[in-house]
């Protein structure tokens, strides 16, 4: 089987998804800023390329397990924006009827199986999805996202060890944004990279570090990891280096992030950089992208309006969905 090759269409596809994520992210943050939305939000701003490249490679029935900073992963996996934003607004039309919220979105229709609010907890669950695929022989792969901070919790070790021993079709996608909450990578993590920890899990586990903000590098590494998982060769620990533009949560004063570091990251905003790249390559024109962005912003606006127009979840729902057989 010849490998899929990175093409101008691939790059455009990744950019399109990343831009869509950025528009959605900005739309949501605008609603919080204007006081229409009250919630704790963990924006994925700056990390879009990782999700967009992953989404471009996954099949519709593959699984994703993500975390509270998961908007980019959910959108890239194909979760409808209306379902996401209506959930943020706590409406009956939200993905989880407003019972989960932004940190607990689930949408099996698109393979978004769990969004966890607990650092590191998604990895053991991803193994179970992979185990089921292994037994059924359905060739699905599971991608589980987490931050660099999560690589220091015990569940990381338990999950990676089990995945390697069982040769599970799971991709451990560490989105290394250099901070675990407010603590730097270096102050919290003993190893130089997260990916080098893969060596501790033997030949069944591959560890790779890439620039997650580079579409081709990210896409190529994820392609290899997915192929490896799909043919039963085992899991990959894929560390995608990136940067978190907006701090840990919306409104984070980010006092712990050096100004020069933030400025440098913003100057290298992948959404801007890739835009320049695809224009320079003659794939699209400036005007094409402006039109694309305008269309996305309209779509986001429509999703926000959809959420606002949707009914609140009836309070009688407070006691439903506790047990399957409850009255």
């Amino acid at each position: 089987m010849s490998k899929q090759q990175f093409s101008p269409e691939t790059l455009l596809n990744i950019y399109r998804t990343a831009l869509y994520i950025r528009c959605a992210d900005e739309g949501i943050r605008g609603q919080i800023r204007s006081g229409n939305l009250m919630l704790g939000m963990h924006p994925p701003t700056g990390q879009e390329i990782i999700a967009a490249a992953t989404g471009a490679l996954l099949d519709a029935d593959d699984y994703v397990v993500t975390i509270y900073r998961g908007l980019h992963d959910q959108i890239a996996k194909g979760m409808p924006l209306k379902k996401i934003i209506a959930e943020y607004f706590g409406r009956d039309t939200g993905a989880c009827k407003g019972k989960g919220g932004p940190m607990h979105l689930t949408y099996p229709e698109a393979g978004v199986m769990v969004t966890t609010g607990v650092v590191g907890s998604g990895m053991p669950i991803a193994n179970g999805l992979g185990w089921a695929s292994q037994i059924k022989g359905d060739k699905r792969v599971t991608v589980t996202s987490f931050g660099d901070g999560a690589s220091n919790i015990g569940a990381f070790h338990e999950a990676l060890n089990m995945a390697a021993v069982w040769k599970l079709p799971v991709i451990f996608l560490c989105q290394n944004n250099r901070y675990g909450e407010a603590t730097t990578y270096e102050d919290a993590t003993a190893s130089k990279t997260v990916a080098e920890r893969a060596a501790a899990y033997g030949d069944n586990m591959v560890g790779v570090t890439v620039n997650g903000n580079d579409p081709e590098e990210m896409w190529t590494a994820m392609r290899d990891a997915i192929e490896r998982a799909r043919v039963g060769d085992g899991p990959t620990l894929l560390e995608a280096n990136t940067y978190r533009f907006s701090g840990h949560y919306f409104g984070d004063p980010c006092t712990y992030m050096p100004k020069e570091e933030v400025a440098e990251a913003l100057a290298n905003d992948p959404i801007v950089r890739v835009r320049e790249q695809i224009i320079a390559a003659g794939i699209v024109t400036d005007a094409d992208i402006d039109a694309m962005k305008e269309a996305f912003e309209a779509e986001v606006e429509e999703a926000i309006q959809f959420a606002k127009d949707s009914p609140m979840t009836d309070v009688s729902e407070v006691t439903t969905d506790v047990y399957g057989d409850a009255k």
Partner: protein
Amino acid sequence: MSDVETITFTQAYGRALDEALAADPTVLLLGEDIGDKEGGGVFKVTGGLSTKYGTDRVRTTPISEQAIIGAAIGASLAGMRPVAEIMFMNFVTVAMDQIVNHAAKLRYMSGGKTTVPITIRTRTGAGTSNGGQHSDMLEAWFAHVPGIKVVVPSTPADAVGLLRACIEDDDPCLFIEDGLTRVMKGPAPPADYRLPLGKAHVEREGSDVSVISYGRPMHDIRKLADSFAAEGISLEVIDLRTVSPLDVDTIIQSVCKTGRAVIAHEAVRSFGVGAEIAAQIQEHAFGNLKAPVKRIASKDTTVPFARALEQAFLYQASDIEIAIRQTLDGK
């Protein structure tokens, strides 16, 4: 008349797992040492099953409780019905995040989009000289978490019926096995036996005192009921079978009839299942009470090692008897 077939608790658990694996290809087993290569489990419950059903479906795990429960949850989200063994109940403490934050809550937090039909089998109980980290009855912790069911059998037949029901249930179930009585025998149930979850069993009707319990103390209460009957005192014996969700209706109906209630459990006394039942009784049957509600439990300490200390820690059958006599006196 031919002898009735009897089986031990250990055989009962194994029988239920064997039947479930045979009946449904989505049933999976995972846990430490459970495969035949490892001896079929520390307590031999799963002996023969990995050979019969293959190590894809009956899988020995690393000593990694978070990974065990996580794998069970993930597989269940993909349509499987995993049964995870946590060797001793105290070891669930290292998997609490997976059990409490994920297994119990995913149905609710997803607005009913996903369910977690897993069963967690675990073993515990004091009286086996295993000390403070292998003996605790922690059922109240889990009964305090909406979304997970807590089941404790008190006969081998019930163990078969309840374990099958847990495996077939669409919600996460914690199934607690008593270590001390594992070789105790009881009549075997018919094939494919199932009991309903969430339903207490009035196993002996009576008129003077309602005695409410589950698990190991049920063996003491059955004997006490016979001896009290010889004195002309009639106990109504209720085996909860499912601790949570609690079958409040059956308890209240009984206490309204007898006017007296004695609750017994092996777990420590304070903030326990007994407290919840006593509260339910006073809320719903206050006007019918002829005596204060009594709670029998083990002492509020760590389970000690030394035999004499461990016995002093444990609730005693004589405590239950005394409590029953006190309620009869209106005390």
